[in-house]
C-alpha cells in the first residue's frame, strides 16, 4: 500500500487539528499533538526510505478528490472575500474576488469547453525533492508544534488572556502542516493551487491570532500580498489550461522552452513556444510574493507580530519555502532564458537588500525575518541560474536554513518569554539569565553564518555557482559579507558576560528544551555529515535534472571541481577550542578576575559596570550596538530598494509578455 504515508502526512495533521479544536482540553490537545508529531515523523521517514513514485488518489468518502478540492477552493476564496468585506479592505475583496472569478472560469467554463488532451498525469509525485520538503515539514514542523504547546500557555499568561484561544491556534497551525505536505506532493497544479491558498489562509489566521490592531493590520497586508500572488497563480492556470492544456507541474516543468518542439511528442499549441513564458513568469511572480521578495518583503516582517511558533513554522522554515520549492520545480523549464536570469537577479537583489536591512534592525524577530527573506532570495537566485552547483546550493540552503532558522525562532521566543523583550539591545548578558538558551542560540546563529555549518557551505556553493553570472555576482558577494555583520553584532550582544557573577541553569518546559536540543543537535550532526545529507537528499534531485550531481563528496567533503569545502578540520578545531575551555578555566583563580577598564573610575557595588562621574555620582556604563539607521534603516534602504525591485519586476513582466 503506497498511500498510507501520504495520507498520514496530509490527513493526520488535519484530523488532529479538528480534534484539538473540538476537544478543548489541554491534556487531550497535548496528547493529540504528540501523537501526531510521532506519526508525521514516521510517515516522513517511511517516504524517505522509498524511491520516487507517483500516486493518484481517486476519492475520499466517495467524493472524487478533484471535486472535493474544487469545492474547498471555492469555499476558501469565498471566505476570504467575506473577510475582506467584514474588515473593509477593498484590496482583499478585489483580489480574492478576482481569483474566485478566475477559478470559476477555470473550473466550470474551461473544464467544460476544452478537451482533456493531456495524457493522464499523476496527481501526486513523490520524488526526492518532495521527500526533502516533507522531511522538513514533518520533522522541523513537528518540533515547532511541540514547542508551541508550552509556549502558547506562557504566551497567554503573558497576554493575560481571559479565555484561551489555543484550540483555534492549533487548528490553523496543524491545518497548515497538512496543507503544506499536500502542497509538496501535488503534481496537479489545481491541487497545488488549493494548498497554496490554504497556506495563505492559515498564515492570515495565525498572524491575526491575537486580534490586536497591529496584528490585524499586518495580517491583512500579508493577505493581500499573498492574494496578489494567488491571482497571478490563477491567471497562470487559466493560461495553461486554455493554451497548453497543462494542469500538471511535471508537464509544465518538463517543457523544454529552449528546445521546442515539445514534451512527449505533444504538438505545439500556440504560435510561439515563448507563450509558455507567461505562465512561468506569473508563477514566479506568485512565488516572489509568497517568498516575500523585495518589494513584497513587508508582509513577512509584519508577520512577526504573530506568536513565535507561527514565525518559526510558517514564516521561515516551511510556508515561505513553498515558494522557492515552486521555483525550483519550474526552474528546468526556464533554464538559460532571460527569465531565468531575471529571476536570479531578483532573488540576488533581495538577498543583498534584505541582508543590508537586517543590519539596521534592533528587533530580534525582524532580524530573523530579514535573514529569512535574504536566504529565500539566495535560493531563488540559485534556482534562477539553475546549474548543477546552483541547484545543489539551493537545496542545501533550503535544508539547513529550515533547521537553523526554526531553531533560532524557538530560541528567540524562549528568550522573549525569559526577558520580556525581543529587543537585541536588552539581550545583553543573556548568558546569566538563560545560559542554556543562550548557548543553543549561539549554536543556531553560528550555524547561520560561519563555517563549517550547512548554511555557510550553501553560501560557499552559491558563490562558486554564481561566478559565471556577472549580473548576479555582486549581490551574492555583498549579501554574504553583510550576513556576518548583523549576526556577529547580535551574537556579541548575547554573549556578553560580565565580571564576577554566578549563574544557574534556567528551567524550561520539557517540550521547549527538547525541541531546542533536538534541532540544535540536528544542525550540528547534519552539518558534520553534510556529505551524506547531500548525497541522500540533494544529489538525486540534481542528478535527476542534469544527469550529473555537480558536486561530489569524495571524503566527507563537498567538491565542485572549482573548489572544495572540507568541514571536518574546522569541526576538529572547534572541538579543540571547546577542550581548551576547562583547561583555561581551571587556570583562572578568583583573584585573577579583575574588573574591566573604566578609565580607572570603577565604582560602587558593580565595579565592573559602574563608574564615578561628575559629582561623584555612580553611573552605569552601557554600550549600544551600531545600527547605522541612517544607512541601513528600513526607510533608507527602501528608498533605493523599492525602485530597483519594482523595476526588476517590471522588466520581468516585460520579458514574459506574450
Amino acid at each position, binding site marked *: 500500500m503506497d498511500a498510507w504515508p501520504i495520507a498520514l502526512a496530509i490527513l493526520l495533521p488535519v484530523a488532529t487539528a479538528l480534534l484539538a479544536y473540538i476537544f478543548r482540553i489541554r491534556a487531550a490537545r497535548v496528547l493529540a499533538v504528540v501523537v501526531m508529531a510521532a506519526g508525521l515523523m514516521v510517515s516522513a521517514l517511511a517516504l524517505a526510505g522509498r524511491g520516487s513514485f507517483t500516486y493518484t488518489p481517486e476519492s475520499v468518502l466517495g467524493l472524487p478528490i478533484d471535486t472535493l478540492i474544487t469545492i474547498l477552493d471555492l469555499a476558501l476564496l469565498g471566505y476570504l472575500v467575506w473577510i475582506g468585506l467584514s474588515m473593509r479592505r477593498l484590496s482583499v475583496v478585489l483580489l480574492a474576488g478576482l481569483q474566485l472569478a478566475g477559478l470559476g472560469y477555470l473550473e466550470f467554463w474551461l473544464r467544460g469547453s476544452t478537451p482533456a488532451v493531456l495524457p493522464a498525469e499523476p496527481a501526486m509525485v513523490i520524488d526526492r525533492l518532495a521527500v526533502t520538503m516533507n522531511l522538513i515539514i514533518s520533522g522541523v514542523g513537528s518540533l515547532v508544534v511541540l514547542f508551541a504547546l508550552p509556549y502558547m500557555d506562557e504566551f497567554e499568561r503573558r497576554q493575560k488572556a481571559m479565555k484561551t484561544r489555543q484550540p483555534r491556534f492549533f487548528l490553523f497551525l496543524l491545518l497548515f502542516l497538512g496543507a503544506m505536505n499536500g502542497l509538496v506532493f501535488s503534481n496537479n497544479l489545481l491541487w497545488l493551487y488549493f494548498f497554496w491558498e490554504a497556506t495563505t489562509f492559515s498564515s492570515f489566521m495565525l498572524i491575526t491570532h491575537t486580534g490586536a490592531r497591529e496584528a490585524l493590520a499586518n495580517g491583512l497586508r500579508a493577505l493581500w500580498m499573498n492574494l496578489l500572488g494567488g491571482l497571478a497563480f490563477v491567471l497562470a492556470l487559466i493560461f495553461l489550461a486554455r493554451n497548453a492544456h497543462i494542469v500538471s507541474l511535471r508537464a509544465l516543468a518538463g517543457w523544454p522552452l529552449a528546445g521546442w518542439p515539445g514534451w512527449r511528442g505533444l504538438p505545439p499549441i500556440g504560435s510561439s513556444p515563448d507563450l509558455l513564458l507567461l505562465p512561468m513568469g506569473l508563477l514566479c511572480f506568485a512565488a516572489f510574493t509568497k517568498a516575500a521578495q523585495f518589494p513584497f518583503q513587508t508582509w513577512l516582517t509584519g508577520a512577526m507580530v504573530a506568536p513565535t511558533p507561527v514565525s518559526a513554522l510558517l514564516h521561515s522554515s516551511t510556508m515561505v519555502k513553498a515558494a522557492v520549492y515552486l521555483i525550483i520545480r519550474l526552474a528546468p523549464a526556464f533554464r538559460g532564458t532571460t527569465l531565468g536570469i531575471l529571476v536570479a537577479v531578483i532573488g540576488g537583489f533581495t538577498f543583498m537588500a534584505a541582508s543590508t536591512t537586517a543590519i539596521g534592525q534592533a528587533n530580534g524577530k525582524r532580524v530573523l525575518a530579514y535573514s529569512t527573506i535574504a536566504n529565500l532570495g539566495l535560493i531563488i537566485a540559485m534556482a534562477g541560474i539553475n546549474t548543477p552547483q546552483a541547484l545543489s546550493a539551493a537545496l542545501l540552503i533550503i535544508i539547513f536554513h529550515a533547521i537553523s532558522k526554526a531553531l533560532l525562532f524557538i530560541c528567540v521566543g524562549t528568550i522573549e518569554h525569559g526577558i520580556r523583550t525581543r529587543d537585541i539591545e536588552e539581550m545583553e548578558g543573556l548568558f546569566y539569565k538563560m545560559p542554556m538558551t543562550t548557548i543553543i542560540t549561539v549554536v543556531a546563529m553560528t550555524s547561520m553564518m*560561519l563555517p563549517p555549518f550547512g548554511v555557510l557551505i550553501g553560501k560557499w556553493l552559491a558563490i562558486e555557482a554564481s561566478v559565471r553570472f556577472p549580473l548576479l555576482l555582486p549581490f551574492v558577494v555583498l549579501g554574504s559579507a553583510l550576513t556576518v555583520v548583523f549576526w556577529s553584532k547580535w551574537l556579541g550582544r548575547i554573549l556578553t558576560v560580565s565580571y564576577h557573577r554566578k549563574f544557574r541553569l534556567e528551567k524550561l518546559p520539557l517540550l521547549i528544551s527538547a525541541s531546542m536540543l533536538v534541532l540544535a543537535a540536528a544542525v550540528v550532526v547534519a552539518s558534520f555529515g553534510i556529505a551524506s545529507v547531500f548525497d541522500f537528499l540533494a544529489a538525486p534531485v540534481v542528478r535527476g535534472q542534469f544527469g550529473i550531481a555537480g558536486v561530489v563528496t569524495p571524503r566527507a567533503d563537498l567538491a565542485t571541481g572549482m573548489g572544495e569545502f572540507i568541514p571536518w578540520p574546522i569541526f576538529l578545531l572547534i572541538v579543540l577550542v571547546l577542550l581548551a575551555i576547562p583547561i583555561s578555566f581551571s587556570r583562572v583563580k578568583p583573584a585573577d*578576575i579583575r574588573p574591566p*577598564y573604566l578609565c580607572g573610575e570603577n565604582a560602587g557595588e558593580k565595579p565592573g559596570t559602574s563608574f564615578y562621574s561628575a559629582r561623584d555620582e555612580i553611573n552605569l556604563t552601557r554600550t549600544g550596538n551600531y545600527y547605522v539607521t541612517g544607512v541601513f534603516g528600513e526607510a533608507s534602504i527602501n528608498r533605493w530598494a523599492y525602485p530597483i525591485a519594482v523595476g526588476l519586476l517590471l522588466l520581468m513582466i516585460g520579458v514574459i509578455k506574450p
Partner: protein
Amino acid sequence: MIGRTIATYGISPLWVTLATVVAAPAIGGLLTGIDRKLTARLQNRVGPPIWQPFHDLVKLWSKERITVNQVQLLYVYAHLFLMIASLVGLMLGQDLLMIFFIFAFSSVSLILGGFSVRSPYSRIGSQREIMQLMAYEPVLVLMAIGIYLATGSFFVHEIITSGNPLLYSLPLVFAAYAVILVVKLRKSPFDLSTAVHHVHQEVVKGLLTEYSGPYLGLIELANWYELVFLLALGGLFWATSLWGALLAAAVLFLFQVVVDTVSARVTWAWMLKFVWTVGLGLAAINIVWLYM
C-alpha cells in the same frame, strides 16, 4: 609557493602543516619587528631592536593571568586556532573561498571576544571591527572570484601552477588588496578598532582593552600568523616564481608601513565609504574586464 611544492613534489600535508605552524610565527614576529624598526626610522627615531616582538611575546606569556571573566579566553583560542587553520589551508593549496571563510570566522572570534566583557571600550572596538569586517570581506571574496576567473580554479595549488602571474590579469585587484591589507592589519589610517602599539586611540585599545598577559600574547601570536597569511595571499599575485611572490609580499609590506606613517586615522564611516568605493570599485572594474 609552498603549495606548488606540494603539488609538484608531493610533500606530505602533515609536514607542510607542521612547518607552517612553526615557521610562520618566526617570520611574522620578525616582520613585526622590522615594521616597528622601520616605522621608528621613518619617524626619525632609533626604535626597538628587530627581535623586540619576541621579547614582548615571552614577557606577555610570563605575566599574571588576569581576566575580566573566563569566557573571554575561549575566543582567544578560537581566534588563534582558526587563524592558524587559514594559513595552513593556504599553504596546503586549499579552496581560497573556504580559507576566507575560516579567516572570517577567526576575525569573528576576536570580535566576540571584545564583546564578551562589559567594558565599553572593548565593545566599541568590536563594533568598529565589525565595520572593518564589513568593509574588507566583500573585497576578499571578489578577489577570490577574480582569481578564479583568471585561473579557472579556487584551489590555491592550481592557482599557483596556472601559468602567468596573476598580477598581469589582476592589477587592480592587487591594488584593492593593498587597501584592505591596511584595513585588516589595523594600520593607520584604518586603525579604528584597536590601537597598534604606541598609537593613542579614543577607544583605548579597542577590542584588546580587556586582554592582558598571556592572552594578549596569544592574540599577538595570532597577529603574526595573520600577517604571514595576508602577505602570502599577496604573494599569490606573483606566485609563478618564489622571488616574484616574495617581491609582491615585500611591496605590500613596505606599502602598509609607509602608509601607516604618513596618514592620520579616519572615521569608520569614511573607511567604509572609501573601501567600498575605491577597493570594491577597483576590484569590480578588474573583474568586469576579465569577463570581457
